[in-house]
């Protein structure tokens, strides 16, 4: 495959995002498309958006999409449910989930017990927050009944936070801070990374395929990841251009360029591990995650790491 493929012989594949609409985390894909990396790999990639975040897995297993972008918790849940899916690469390498408070609020790991006690904490009800929050509460020596968790899947945590409806919100730094910039409220959000308060430092998003697809189309999976990697690297080097390419690809997304750019810039630091590598998954990340999910009863049994992932389709270097 690859370099000599002509337009006619491009292999059509479908990529399902994790969210009903496009946002800046899709930038590596957009760039890979725009810069012709997919084409160079002989791929014609169509991007689709699921009705909700848990449908991406179903789209993979029903072959409505061949590649998917999901959270590692989705992955854990899917394997637990018997869905034959497999993570082929990390998207981000670390955990940028955090607690947030209004500008000027003091938020430190040391004083967490008194800061959170009796307060309202916003959650989208997503499994990531549900599995991270227990670590933080444990760290702060708080039980579930000593805080009030507000679960609002259709709301906007920032609005509720800024309007004083909740005391703390939970989200990932890239989305939260990019969103906050749109509010034109002065100052900076107070922020406490989950990893600074007991949460494990594990990746949040991965690229996934089904096991059968990977087994039958190893070169396609490799080609896909190779192109995405090039796209990622290009976007890391050229954040401004990358954000504009996203704007061009999705001119009617409803996001401002500023949001996309800020969001992408805040995403970049989390894309590589401590040795500067993209994509590489580890046994440790998956077993930590599986145990965390088991501890909140989200999954019934912890599978061996190899049940969740493989690095073997990743480009070398």
């Amino acid at each position, binding site marked *: 495959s690859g370099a000599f493929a002509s337009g006619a012989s491009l292999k059509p594949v479908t990529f399902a995002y994790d969210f009903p609409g496009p946002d800046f985390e899709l930038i590596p894909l957009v760039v890979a498309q725009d810069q012709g990396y997919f084409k160079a790999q002989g791929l014609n990639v169509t991007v689709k958006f699921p009705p909700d975040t848990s449908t991406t897995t179903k789209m993979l297993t029903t072959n409505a999409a061949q590649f998917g972008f999901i959270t590692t918790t989705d992955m854990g849940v899917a394997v637990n449910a018997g869905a034959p899916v497999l993570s082929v690469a990390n998207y981000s390498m670390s955990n940028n989930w955090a607690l947030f408070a209004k500008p000027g609020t003091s938020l430190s790991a040391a004083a967490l017990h008194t800061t959170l006690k009796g307060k309202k904490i916003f959650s989208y009800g997503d499994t990531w927050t549900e599995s991270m929050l227990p670590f933080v509460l444990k760290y702060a020596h708080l039980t579930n009944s000593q805080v009030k968790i507000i679960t609002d899947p*259709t709301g906007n945590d920032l609005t509720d936070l800024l309007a004083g409806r909740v005391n703390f919100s939970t989200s990932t730094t890239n989305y939260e801070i990019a969103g906050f910039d749109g509010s034109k409220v002065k100052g900076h959000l107070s922020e406490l990374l989950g990893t600074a308060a007991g949460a494990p430092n594990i990746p949040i998003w991965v690229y996934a395929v089904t096991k059968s697809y990977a087994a039958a189309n190893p070169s396609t999976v490799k080609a896909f990841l190779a192109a995405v990697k090039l796209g990622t690297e290009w976007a890391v080097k050229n954040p401004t251009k990358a954000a504009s390419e996203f704007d061009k690809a999705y001119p009617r997304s409803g996001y401002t360029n500023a949001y996309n750019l800020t969001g992408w810039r805040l995403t970049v630091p989390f894309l590589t591990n401590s040795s500067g590598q993209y994509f590489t998954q580890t046994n440790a990340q998956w077993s930590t995650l599986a145990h965390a999910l088991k501890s909140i009863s989200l999954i019934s049994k912890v599978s061996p790491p190899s049940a969740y992932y493989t690095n073997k389709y990743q480009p070398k270097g």
Partner: protein
Amino acid sequence: MKRGLLFNLVVPLVSLGLLLLVWQAIVVVFNVAPYVAPRPLEAIQSVTGNWSILWPLILGTVRETVYGFFCGAALGLLLGVAMAKIPFVQQLFYPVVLVSQAVPIIALAAPLVLILGFSITPKVVIVAWIVFFPVTVNVLDGLNHVDQDLVSLARVYGASRWRTFVLIEIPATSSPLFSGLKIGAMYAVTGAIIGELAAGDGNSLALYQEHANANLNTAAVYGTTIVMTIIGIAWFLLVVGVEIWATPWQRRTVARRGLRHRGRGGARLLDGANIGARST
């Protein structure tokens, strides 16, 4: 009547049973994975097997549905009466009432929560928002069609406006009123679910469903959908029952404890809807 009643209970159940059969057939024939779509029995078991967890959530949803229904019904009645009685109010409010229904309710949930907080209130408001409309429109229409000669007759007898309203106009509007209530009842639970999604205290049927979905526990997703639907249908049937009880003249010859029945239903928009209470 006896055969009719049996028939009218059996046929709906048969047709709903057929629905389950079709579902089962599709899942089996296309060999659909359980996390994509469950079999009917799995869906039902996911409810019965977690009954102790679900029961309080169901109660919560029922509570929101019922409170919202009553608020909406009261508001609808009030507004309908005010609009029928005061032409200026009608002129002023009719456009607003219409617009209120054209607003996509899902776009409304978030601002409502922001304004009303994370209590039961926004859920009740959303349910009421859905329920009041058919009630208002039907009451307005009903009051506008009350025989004016009957109203004049009451005046000739020396009746006050209030007594005329209570004793003549309101009962004369019972049939459209109940039509409005039945439509409202049917959609009320949808409102409660939208509200629960937007204003969760972490403990609601809608969130349970959402979590089950995130969990790829598709059986529970379908199971809770069935439960929600049953809440809606049950509430609807309850209103139908109240109508049958409250408007005996629609199907009886003789006041209660009499024996003979008449076959004519009296409800309007949902005339055919009185399952189990019509003779064919």
